[in-house]
């Protein structure tokens, strides 16, 4: 039988030395931001019941999840996300707690990606949720934190992009379209030519409907800076969408006051996970990574779908691996460090060697006890690991350690 004991499964990887430092550094930076803003960390199991993720409004595809069964034959998954577990906790253990709740999670998640697509099946995701807060205040807080997260990346060009899928939902209400999922995915992929074809067939000649169909067709093109609003305001004037637009613009304008203006963009064509998000949706991009590194939005019906009362909720998640990899590639993350001093002890002085290490460490110098058998081997080791100082302990010759500089 073929044995696979020398490789890791597709989509997973070992992180060694600099890669590991970069990942930890990126994770710690996010944790610092979140705790400083009053968020409490929770850890959820990597294994959850399939049912936690299997619900129409929770938008996880069956084929995207790693599945296994427990001892009783029940279907379980490796968590593909941290928000569902948090919603489960809020709807159960925390349902009588003090709201609003501000939670964050920083843990690995698992996705079954198409084979050989070069995507990670296991990666670290760090994210926050505000549950039960006032909508306007929570939206602003979450957006400003998302902007801070992006700014903390070492990337030269970052962008936070905000949308609101209320517009899309209002439009769908006004137009009766049979194939909503196709329309949604055409808007998401900004495929205006095909969208035009599809809409043409399903909208008759009723003038009101034509108006809304025109707006729907424009949605994918309504992205960019503040100029998008003047275009949208003209387009939406006098329709059911106009009120929501002025609210949305207020959020956008306040955020722009807080942040470097050209880092905040708008995209009214953000319609991903339409059954799940119920208000603002947003994404963060960095120059070095080909997909969004941050993604979030408002999901007011999720907690209710776990049997509790509906509760306003908003949050986002960051792909920590992607940020770490970008930092590493641009040489902006810290390097893996070896000890400053290597301590080599002769056969009879081993315990003195160990206590000398402790003394050095206590005085703020990192020290490594050499496990090489000979001094020559220890010197080779020090050179290979760029350690410039060796302390040699040989009580027979010297009472004090002898320092050798390489």
């Amino acid at each position, binding site marked *: 039988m073929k044995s696979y004991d020398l490789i890791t499964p597709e989509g997973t990887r070992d992180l060694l030395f600099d890669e590991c430092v970069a990942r930890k550094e990126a994770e710690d930076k996010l944790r610092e931001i979140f705790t400083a803003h009053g968020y409490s960390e929770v850890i959820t199991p990597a294994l959850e019941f399939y049912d936690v993720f299997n619900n129409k409004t929770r938008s996880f595809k069956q084929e995207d999840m790693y599945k296994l069964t427990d001892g009783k034959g029940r279907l379980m998954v490796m968590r593909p996300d941290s928000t569902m577990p948090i919603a489960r906790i809020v709807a159960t253990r925390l349902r009588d707690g003090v709201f609003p709740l501000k939670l964050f999670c920083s843990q690995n998640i698992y996705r079954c990606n198409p084979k050989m697509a070069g995507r990670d099946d296991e990666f670290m995701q760090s994210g926050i949720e505000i549950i039960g807060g006032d909508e306007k205040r929570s939206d602003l807080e979450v957006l400003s934190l998302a902007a801070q997260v992006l700014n903390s990346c070492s990337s030269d060009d970052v962008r936070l*992009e905000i949308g609101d899928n209320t517009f899309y939902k209002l439009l769908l209400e006004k137009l009766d379209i049979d194939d909503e999922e196709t329309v949604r995915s055409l808007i998401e*992929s*900004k495929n205006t030519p095909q969208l035009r074809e599809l809409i043409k067939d399903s909208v008759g000649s009723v003038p009101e409907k034509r108006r809304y169909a025109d707006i729907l067709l424009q949605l994918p093109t309504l992205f960019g800076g503040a100029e998008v609003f003047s275009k949208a305001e003209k387009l939406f004037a006098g329709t059911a969408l106009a009120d929501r637009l002025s609210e949305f613009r207020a959020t956008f304008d306040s955020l722009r006051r807080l942040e470097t203006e050209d880092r905040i963009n708008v995209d009214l064509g953000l319609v991903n996970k339409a059954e799940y998000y119920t208000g603002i949706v947003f994404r963060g991009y960095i120059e070095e*990574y080909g997909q969004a590194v941050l993604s979030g939005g408002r999901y007011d019906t999720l907690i209710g779908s776990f049997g509790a009362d509906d509760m306003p909720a908003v949050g986002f998640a960051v792909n920590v691996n992607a940020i770490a990899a970008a930092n590493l590639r641009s040489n902006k993350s810290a390097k893996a460090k070896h000890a400053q001093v290597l301590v080599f002890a002769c056969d009879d002085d081993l315990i003195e060697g160990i206590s000398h290490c402790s003394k050095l460490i206590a005085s703020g110098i990192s020290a490594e006890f050499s496990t090489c058998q000979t001094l020559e081997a220890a010197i080779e080791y020090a050179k290979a690991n760029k350690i410039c100082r060796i302390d040699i302990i040989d009580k027979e010759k010297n009472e004090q350690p002898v320092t050798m500089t390489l």
Partner: protein
Amino acid sequence: MNDNKIIRIALTKGRLEKDTVNLFEKIGYDVSQLRDKGRWLILEVPGSNIEVVLAKAADVLTYVEHGVCDVGVVGKDTIDEHGGRFFEVCDLGFGKCRFALAGKVGYNFYEGCGVKTIATKYPNITRKFFESKAMDVDIVKIEGSVELAPLLELSDGIVDIVETGTTLKENGLEVYEYVSPISARVIVNPVSMKLKKKSIEELIDKMERNI
């Protein structure tokens, strides 16, 4: 911010490449290097902010999805077969043909309740098509001339690209049903679209106006 950055475009080698290069010429780009490319894989367009990469169709999707190329020109057939996370912003109109279900002349494909066997180079498109009809079919992946499969009675039908239908006719096959239209599309990486908005929109606008 840096809206004058180079835009890297991946072109599908072969016919789409020729059509796209002609389109670039019409736009007014200097396509001398693109015509006389030798063994170069990354080609420059002098005096412009674009750079061209030639790749196999499915690789165009991969390069654009990962953001190492900002824009791609690729057939709808490849997009439908492989999928991916990118924007599909423009139909270039050339490279037009259709996916069709075909088989031996005179055979009633939908007759009977037995499970049919389909030979194809496009297993995903075939699966989706029959899924939409709630039909179970056996799909056999073929790499070369798919038309051979029904003639050798390996399959009841084929799903393949049909342009004029001549090859089918010459081999005693006919189209039973059209599956979907195909033409060359422009795809864009979602991050590039946002970070290089102005340059990319200008390029696409130029392409659309010169189709």
